């Protein structure tokens, strides 16, 4: 089954980090992603730009409503995602628990429907 691992964390911490610290975080995620890749589990993943760059779009009565900011203001923000292909939820949970943001923020695990 494919699962989307959505990485939620307080982006203020990330914003406050030095470039070196950010580079270290990226390397940490990179090492994990490489490991999953070698095990043949990776189907994709990206880091997202901060929510300050987000735009939300709605169409109501044929009119386009475009607003600044994310869909919902939350304490933790979606900062990136992975798509993995594993046997079951237990395996997906085990992978999610490996991510650094699982310790500081949270990872939402969602199955991807096969069309």
């Amino acid at each position, binding site marked *: *089954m494919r*699962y989307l691992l959505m990485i939620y964390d307080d982006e203020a911490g990330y914003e406050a980090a030095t470039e070196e610290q950010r580079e270290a975080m990226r390397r940490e995620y990179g090492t994990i992603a490489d490991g999953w890749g070698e095990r043949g589990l990776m189907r994709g993943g990206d880091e997202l730009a901060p929510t300050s760059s987000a735009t939300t779009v709605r169409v109501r009565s044929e009119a386009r409503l475009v607003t600044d900011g994310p869909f919902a203001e939350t304490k933790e923000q979606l900062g990136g995602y992975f798509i993995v292909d594993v*046997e*079951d*939820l*237990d395996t*997906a*949970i*085990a992978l999610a628990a490996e991510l650094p943001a699982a310790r500081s923020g949270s990872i939402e695990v969602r*199955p991807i429907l096969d069309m």
Partner: protein
Amino acid sequence: MPDVAEVLDRAFRLDAGRAVAALIGALRDFDLAEEAWQEACEQALRTWPTRGVPDNPSAWLFTTARNRAIDRLRRDRIGLEKTAAAVQIADLQALGDDMHEIPDDRLRLLFTCCHPALALDTRVALTLRTVAGLTTREIARAFLVPEPTLGQRLTRAKRKIREAGIPYRVPPREVLPERLDGVRAVVYLVFNEGYAATEGELLRAELCDEAIRLCRLLDHLIPDEPETRGLLALLLLQHARRASRTDAAGEIVVLEDQDRSRWDQAMIDEGLGLVRDAAPETGAYRLQAQIAACHAAAPRPEDTDWPRIATLYTALAATRPSPVVELNRAVAIAMADGPDAGLRLLEPLAGDLDRYHLFHAARADLLRRAGDADAAGLAYDRALELVTNDAERRYLERRRRDLASH
């Protein structure tokens, strides 16, 4: 009047859990497995009265349920589903005719029903429905929720199991201890749901029996787990007091006032045996069982070994730190060393437990013992502001009145 299939289901409840577990194992489909078992029970009700009860009723029910499932797979599956159905049918046929000849699948079922990705109340309901074999109606009555609400909860749970890919298996070694703890927590929750009900509603007391049955099953499926044994001992020692916990009018009778001759001695003996055999380790259930054993082993309230109970609560507080454990520890120390020692330990808990009626009730009792009736009265007033259960309220009101009359 209960429906007839429900009566039959109850008669074969243990078989129902085992049969449904085996059917789910082959089918990977909770609904189809349950419906097939239900249909087999209904068929038994139609044919047994005229043709007689078969020699081996549970084997008959299992074979019939298996065949009903095969029929439905052949009849209902169309197009691409036929390939999947062919695999399911082959797996069902491979089960053979006698479920007692095949590996017991209830452990896989238990771990699936108690999966942490399901909400806690859902885990409880699903375990009672599929492992313990209670009907939706029985569970709804026991948890005081409308039957359709509980039905929806079960439907959503089964959908989540399917859609989220919750595996039907015993978890691997590295997560087994944590998941086993989760199963025990569900068993304990079922028990407490029955135990906390003091109004003598029959079905809720049955929840305690059901929890003990589930705990025995867990102990049978994964033997020699000290904490499972500890939990079983704890449940037996608490349930042994059921007859004496309320009086004829349904009023609460506290431990020290209970008629100890009405305690279930067979249950106490079994519980004490389990506690004696347990390794002297510090698992939370074993510690609680040892505390319950101190009470159960005392012929009279004044024979209670309070210093030992206080030591056990200290160990429990180290394993599972919580203000409520600290409260119990303070009460035990008050019983061992006098009310003032207990009151000193209660002071730092006032912040955390200010909204907890039993904190104020315990404090009131210690103040009364210390001879400070005015302060005790105020503490009872505070407990009465917070209490929600009617029987507990009446108990606290009695204590408050006794205070004034002395």
